């Protein structure tokens, strides 16, 4: 069984919670005691029907205010796949939450209200999905029951969507599905009301969409996370490098270069408690030993000489600002990239992106919450990086405010 991580995006009242509730309910992932608790709360709140949103709104403040505050993770499985949903709220701190949810997703479901068609928020959701390099989009045209299951209306929305989506260059596949989350049309079961639609149901698509091969298996990257030194009698001279393969494949005997020192050596063995492995590939967590004794510590990276990463202190990146406190010009931060942490300064804000129109706004300096824009950063030490487009692990970083220790921004290296 494999794993699909997806995120859901929709504006307020597009029926996102209902859709998730429907997926969980129809795939029999809601348990009786959860359903009972939900019915009981709905009754107490005076809701007309069982409010499926109560399943996703877990915090007290959310239930009191009837809003979703934070990214929530949901799980369900079918005999074919296990699914992790990053459910992101539609209003408060929208950009921050969707960026967070999208950072680990392989697929995004964009919900469109069939009565409203493509609106500004739809474009914003797609822009973020594209920016975070989600390669698969599902456009779920919801509330088809409220437009008489109209085929013409559905095709009009597809056309509208395709028109602006042509600019989203990271997305390799877009699938459109007309649904009614409330009644379950085309969610798990094929709709009897839309005989004209010949495509898959939403769940069938989620179960079968091909997402393997999104890891970079070509450019070998091994950020060293921890040095394993047993210092026991049995493993007296053992010195292993533990980490998660961020790209490519490592095999015993492979020549590797250590950054930043530049020394070259070979992989001696790949260790696991069940014996030695014949190879390690992304995203495995392994422990490597090398044939030569070289000084290597956390934050260093093992790579292969034929396709090295970029090495440098000056980074161009797209940044999303998360903090309620605005970023002043030339602000200094702690930058965390792979297993490395260093100081960094924002040299220049090149432009902001208006995420509703996708236009660039130039002559700007700082950032306010939820702003997205391009910056030029200077790190205190060289980073070993790839563009985010090539590698999500070696192309991403976060910025931490040294005064508050808060994570204030997420960055994607251009």
């Amino acid at each position: 069984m494999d794993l699909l991580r997806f995120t859901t995006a929709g504006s307020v009242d597009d029926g996102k919670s209902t859709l998730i509730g429907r997926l969980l309910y129809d795939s029999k992932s809601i348990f009786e005691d959860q359903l009972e608790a939900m019915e009981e709360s709905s009754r107490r709140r005076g809701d007309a029907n069982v409010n499926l949103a109560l399943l996703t709104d877990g915090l007290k403040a959310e239930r009191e205010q009837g809003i979703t505050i934070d990214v929530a993770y949901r799980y369900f499985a079918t005999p074919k796949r296990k699914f992790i949903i990053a459910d992101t709220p539609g209003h408060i701190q929208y950009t921050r939450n969707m960026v967070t949810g999208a950072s680990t997703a392989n697929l995004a479901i964009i919900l469109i209200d069939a009565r409203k068609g493509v609106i500004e928020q739809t474009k914003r959701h797609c822009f973020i999905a594209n920016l975070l390099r989600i390669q698969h989009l599902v456009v779920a045209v919801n509330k088809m029951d409220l437009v008489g299951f109209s085929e013409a209306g559905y095709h009009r929305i597809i056309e509208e969507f395709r028109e602006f989506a042509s600019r989203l260059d990271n997305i390799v596949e877009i699938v459109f599905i007309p649904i009614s989350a409330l009644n379950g049309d085309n969610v798990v079961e094929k709709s009897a009301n839309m005989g004209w639609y010949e495509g898959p149901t939403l769940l069938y698509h989620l179960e079968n969409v091909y997402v393997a091969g999104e890891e970079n298996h070509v450019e070998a990257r091994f950020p060293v996370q921890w040095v394993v030194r047993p210092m026991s009698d049995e493993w007296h001279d053992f010195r292993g490098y533990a980490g998660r393969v961020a790209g490519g494949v490592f095999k015993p005997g492979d020549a590797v270069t250590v950054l930043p020192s530049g020394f070259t050596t070979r992989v001696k063995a790949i260790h696991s408690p069940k014996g030695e492995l014949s190879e390690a590939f992304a995203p495995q967590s392994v422990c490597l030993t090398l044939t030569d004794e070289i000084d290597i510590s956390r934050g260093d990276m093992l790579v292969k000489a034929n396709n090295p990463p970029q090495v440098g202190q000056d980074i161009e990146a797209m940044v999303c600002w998360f903090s309620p406190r605005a970023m002043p010009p030339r602000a200094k931060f702690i930058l965390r990239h792979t297993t490395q942490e260093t100081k960094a300064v924002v040299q220049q804000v090149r432009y902001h992106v208006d995420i509703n129109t996708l236009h660039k706004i130039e002559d700007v300096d700082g950032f306010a919450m939820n702003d997205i824009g391009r910056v030029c950063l200077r790190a205190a030490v060289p980073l070993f990086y790839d563009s985010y487009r090539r590698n999500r692990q070696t192309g991403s970083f976060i910025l931490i405010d040294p005064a508050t220790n808060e994570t204030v921004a997420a960055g994607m290296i251009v």
Partner: protein
Amino acid sequence: MSNYRFSHLDQLEAEAIFVLREAAAQFEKPALLFSGGKDSIVMAWLARKAFWPARMPFPLVHVDTGHNFAETMAYRDEFVVLLAARLIVGSVQESIDRGRVVEETGPGASRNKLQTVTLLDTIEQHQYDACLGGGRRDEEKARAKERFFSHRDDFGQWDPKNQRPELWNLFNGRKNPGEHFRIFPLSNFTEMDIWMYMKREEIPLPSIYFAHNREVFQRNGMLLAVTEFLKPQSHETAASRVVRFRTIGDATCTGAVESTASNLDEVIAEVAAARQTERGTRSDDKRSETAMEDRKKEGYF
């Protein structure tokens, strides 16, 4: 490149090991909270793997309510030896004796809530700056919003409305003196994943997870075990039934389920067919709609 296939259990394992190593690397004095329940068993197993062939660079900390199933304690001691780990015990009984907490009274009394004080005291005494916990996001609605690296203030409290965003594989464990972190490497495991992983890894388990005969009685829709700490009231009758436990907590608040599942395959089949969440067998969650969130804010695991 489709030959580099990675099953969902492989993914979850790789992620958990990564998180365990980050915890070791980013903190000065982490500890792994070990309850003897299946989640903490899996977490400790993964910790052994993460640092193998070295020992895990943190101790197992057990907060002992004094109200344990005997099987859990015997298992704990054997498992610690198997993993070549160090064990630190924090005792709720001691907290009571020292007057740090007052024992609840009445038929519904439980030491579950008292654990929080003992836990925070143990953390302070040993100055742990990060505690690894076996919490999973599928367990309970408040946990669905929990981070892998979860910040706790000076008082051990969780502020759910002000959590740090967590992106990619980048975990921010920076903190001020006095603050600490709770870290949840198993966040993305579901109950089913835990069982499947235990089967795949052939992890030994406490016997009470499998069907056995036990004296039990009904209370609030739950089957509670008769122990020296918990007796039926006069209107409740105890009877011997074939049961097993889906979760293991304090003996006074963990309910059994009737089951004949006597090995992992049968348990997995039963979990797959279950129509109740496992926390449905925990009376500590049934105290109010947001019982878990309330306890977590105070510092509960």
